[in-house]
């Protein structure tokens, strides 16, 4: 058996693509290394957000239990941070943190973030088709929509802080700011990637043959959006 000669054309390779940052090895799955790696990374991120969301739910439940039970340490800490007595009373009356939310505002910023997924798809399509002018427009639009979401989050955090929900003043505050803050950092990371793509595009380095790079950023961006759908539902909508 002489199998040590140069390999024959390997079935499936014609469809396989080379990834752009790597030496060209054939791909066993017909999927580029970069794309596979991005999917794996997103799989790992699911566990990250899963653990964060679980921690939030537990912390919020414990917070409500303590407030309803009238735990003086917890309640005094809220009041000391400037939370009005009426809000604390509402927490107790409704056994929920619902009185705190501004649902219309957060819905609007959620809508903006979800729309950015649409522009992301359009950006990928434009690069894929070699329509560089539109690709820049859509990349910039995606980054802008993402930034608007982040601006909304900054506004919301500031408003909540002024109403007395501080990071260190309650279990609920710690959990809320950590979970939504983590998501905000992810969106910010996505915006940096989008802006980098935009710079690449203006320098003429984001051509049709590198559409996969845009696709990868898109995968990340859509993932972050989907996580926000979960967080919005779990944190804001479910009482």
């Amino acid at each position, binding site marked *: *058996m002489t*199998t*040590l*000669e*140069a*390999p*024959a054309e*390997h079935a499936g*390779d*014609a*469809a396989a*693509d*080379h*990834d*752009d*940052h*790597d*030496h*060209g*090895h*054939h*791909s*066993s*799955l017909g999927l580029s*290394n970069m794309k*596979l*790696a991005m999917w*794996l990374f997103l*799989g*790992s991120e699911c*566990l*990250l957000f899963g*653990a964060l969301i679980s*921690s939030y739910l*537990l*912390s919020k439940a414990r*917070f409500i*239990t*303590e407030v309803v039970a009238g735990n003086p*340490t*917890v309640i005094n*800490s809220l009041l000391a941070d400037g939370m009005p007595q009426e809000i604390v009373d509402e927490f107790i009356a409704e056994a929920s943190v619902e009185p705190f939310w501004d649902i219309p505002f957060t819905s609007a910023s959620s809508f903006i973030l979800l729309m950015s997924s649409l522009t992301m798809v359009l950006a990928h399509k434009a690069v*894929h088709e070699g329509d560089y002018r539109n690709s820049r427009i859509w990349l910039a639009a995606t980054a802008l929509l993402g930034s608007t979401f982040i601006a909304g989050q900054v506004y919301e955090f500031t408003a909540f802080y002024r109403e007395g929900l501080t*990071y*260190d003043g*309650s*279990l609920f*505050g*710690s*959990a809320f700011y*950590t979970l939504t803050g983590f998501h905000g950092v992810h969106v910010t990371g996505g915006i940096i990637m989008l802006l*980098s793509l935009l710079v690449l595009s203006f320098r003429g*380095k984001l051509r*049709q*043959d*590198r*559409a*996969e*790079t845009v*696709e990868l950023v898109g995968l990340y961006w859509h993932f972050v959006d989907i996580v926000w759908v979960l967080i919005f539902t779990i944190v804001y909508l479910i009482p």
Partner: protein
Amino acid sequence: MAIVEEPLALPSGQPDKAEKPLGALSRPSELTGLKDWLTTVDHKKIGIMYGAAAMFFLVIGGVAALLIRLQLATPDNTLLSGDAYNRVYTMHGTVMVFLVVMPIGAAFANFLMPLQVGARDVAFPRINAFSFWIFFLGGLMLNTSWFIGGGADGGWFNYAPNNGIAFSPSTGIDFWNIGLLIVGIGSLTGSINLITTVLNMRAPGMTLMKMPVFTWMTLVTQFLLLFAIPVLTVAQVLLAADRLFDANFFNVDMGADPLLWQHLFWIFGHPEVYLMILPAFGIVSEVIPTFARKPIFGYPFMVFSGIAIGFMGWGVWAHHMFVSGIGPLSVTAFSVATMFIAVPTGVKILNWMATLWGGRLILNTAMLFSIGLVTQFTIGGLSGVSHALAPSDTQQTDTYYIVAHFHYVLFGGALFGFMAGFYFWWPKAFGYKLSEAWGKWNFWLMVIGFNLTFGPMHILGLQGMPRRMQTYSEAQGFGFWNLVATWGAFILAVGTVLVLVNALVSYLAWKREGKPDVGADPWDGRTIEWSIKSPAPGHNFDVDPVVSSLDDFWHRKYQPDESGKLRRVHTGEELAQPGDPTGVHLPAPSYWPIVLAASMPIIGYGLIFSLWLMIPGILLMTLALWGWALEPADDLDADHGDHHDDDHGPDTDSSGAEAELETVS
């Protein structure tokens, strides 16, 4: 297709004319000595560095272990204060788990797996270098807590609320926390890298069910890491928020539930114990068939039991928490799940024994250590099943019985397996065999020392000696077996150090003889890493191997004659690739992985001591990311070959991802 017909870009090749985007740290052009090791992206060198770094940390963890044993040798001993004892056992556990056992697993995965799947390197060579450096520098940062942080003192599991500022006011736990977060980044990037490599870069013909068992176990291990690390990361982020920014996640005064820590930690922690042992299972699954002269018994069972362990490992975490008041329903469910997970592990033990049965055994050191694993791990596995029974576990929790159990699985299991791996693959890594005479001493001293150390702990535990207690009184009657264990620990330490002595002695002997070639296939091996020269050349395979069966290399050497009897038709040396790098194209070395990794501990120190210190760290990180992004992974000057004139025209099909660097440079 793929890697053919290109000018050589070996690290030792002609000097390259890389552009210098950032002056001094642009692509290293001369590669000798230290600079080579600092900038290499070669998976084999990175694997060796993982091993060497793990040995360094093994010495630290080992000294801590001996201090523990000295303190416990006699009743009412005052060698270590209570505080010092807390730090020593905490750092012993942390260092051994995160900086010794996991990295040795990573060392084998890095060195071997690409060779076993017939790849030139891992999927992302620079990220691979980054994974190593961030592990090593993060581990060093963790260990600086001995000198400047007061030492972590909460146990390796670091339960809340004991890990809070109130109970542990020194910065030791911050070092534990931030250091392991940094090490975790390396584990995550490493797992993504290695999974991509296994799944996507196999040699033509190597379907999943033709992969060597070690490669399979690497795949399962890395999937466990991929999903377990983020859970630990969340736990550590919450703890860091509590300790550094006054959050309340584990603050009981504010209504927090400290059990959250235990859940998060063990959701990570139980997959963690499997990801420590599975690489060793993979190693002995390669060693035993080679030296029993038989194919592995029940290869599909071997693979699927590994996968089953990988899945079931996620459903047993609360058996660490039977006494924490999680309720009878949870206890029952986790108790049953824990008994079930013994089944796939038992399948593996059975298959190794069936492989040994009727084989023509060659009892060299690698084989002895493999048999050592099978026997010692079985003892540890049996005591493990006794923990699955909640009533029995309630008696044993936090006693030395538990300590005995997990040392039998982690030392008698994982470390014995790694020792087997060292002896087996040493020639492939370094070009010479380790001495068998020293090896036998190595093995027997370790087995005797190991059983003297940890065997008595079963008795001590059943007598009720609690873990983590600094001392005990004469009247408790623990003195005799503790003294035995201490003697055992020193024998074990000497036995373990012998592997390093052996490496040195064997090297000197080899050098005296003029460094004779050990040959590509010194053990009559079965898998394709034995079809290349020893030590493995920088480019691994001259041409992509084509695989047609499990144990492909062995089947090329042995084929059935007319009567159906297997006959050797070739020697390994006849089939071995000559190691000619002509036409091979390799990724180029880079400074950026180590620079990026170095920025993280600076940020970590900043978090602990002063946020101002984070500024240089973040600046360095930005610089490193920028430099990394600007520097192509491949050396462009060596990359203008014509290697895709075969099938890639202007590719505009729906996949649309024909992206070659040449087109953008």
